[in-house]
């Protein structure tokens, strides 16, 4: 039973994620999470003004159900399956974070510095999260997929375009972490 509370190993997680992608392919669908953002936009009716959102979002309802399941899964895992020993990242990483003024995990999934509820009182923190979200939404649609659509689905189907997207993801991520983090924090 102890296993349930500990950090699950990468090989189990990776295998299950691969099987989830294959499961959706077997259901006649594709594994891609960022498409839901487009469906959510289309649900508001903006398709009348912007052609990109003029499609039958109801045909994507299955994917929104996947998202709903994922949200419930996140709730169950955090509420009933976590332990203070979780998120045991590299001590060197923790030291680096300390120099940026970011708190250590101590079992938490997210740093308080960025995701504690006090951030709602800080215009800078609100701005950072909204901008980060904007880049994710804009970038994933521009690239035609995110981690699930390109890194998992695309690479599994040996798609060169997806490799280009993943290279883009990493260049962006490294620029953020190495050059922009010291300026932001």
């Amino acid at each position, binding site marked *: 039973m102890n296993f349930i509370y500990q950090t699950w190993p990468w090989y189990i997680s990776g295998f299950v994620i691969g099987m989830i992608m294959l499961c959706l392919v077997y259901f006649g669908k594709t594994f891609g999470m960022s498409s839901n953002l487009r469906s959510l936009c289309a649900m508001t009716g903006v398709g009348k003004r912007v052609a990109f*959102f003029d499609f039958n979002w109801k045909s994507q309802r299955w994917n929104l159900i996947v998202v709903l399941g994922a949200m419930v*899964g996140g*709730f169950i895992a955090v509420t009933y*399956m976590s332990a203070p020993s979780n998120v045991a990242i*590299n001590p060197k990483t923790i030291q680096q974070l300390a120099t940026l003024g970011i708190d250590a995990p101590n079992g938490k999934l997210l740093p308080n510095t960025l995701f504690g509820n006090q951030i709602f009182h800080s215009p800078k923190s609100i701005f950072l999260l909204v901008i980060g979200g904007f880049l994710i939404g804009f970038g994933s649609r521009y690239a035609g997929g995110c981690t699930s659509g390109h890194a998992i689905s695309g690479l599994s189907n040996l798609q060169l375009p997806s490799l280009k997207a993943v290279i883009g993801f990493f260049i962006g991520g490294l620029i953020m972490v190495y050059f922009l983090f010291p300026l932001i924090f």
Partner: protein
Amino acid sequence: MKGFKYFLVGLIFGIVLTKSEAVSWYRIYEMFQFQSFHMYGIIGVAVATGIVGIQIIKQKKVKDIEGLPIAILDKEKVAARYYIGGLFFGLGWALVGSCPGPIFILLGAGFLPLVLVLIGALVGTFCYGVLKDKLPH
């Protein structure tokens, strides 16, 4: 009940991503610092599992659940959109520490500040929709 299997797939996805900490901001930062194998292991095994599965599906011409042939579409063969779009995505991924799946998973887990990330992501998606024809692909 047709939708239940999708709910179940999502449920497992949410639990596994949370329990393996792929939804953790810390794990993403650690990955971009190359200070742990954990995230690379997850992505690597997922892709390896996927490659084997997709090859089996293609070679045995496996039919889907409704008995229809499975067609896996190739991605559009261009370059600019993948590098440029990918770059934008990567900047956001590293800053917020979550990609679209984890945004929803963490919201479900009750991390309220993720609402801000979701709003940003919807606005970003909307802006792409508006600017699409003016952007290089």
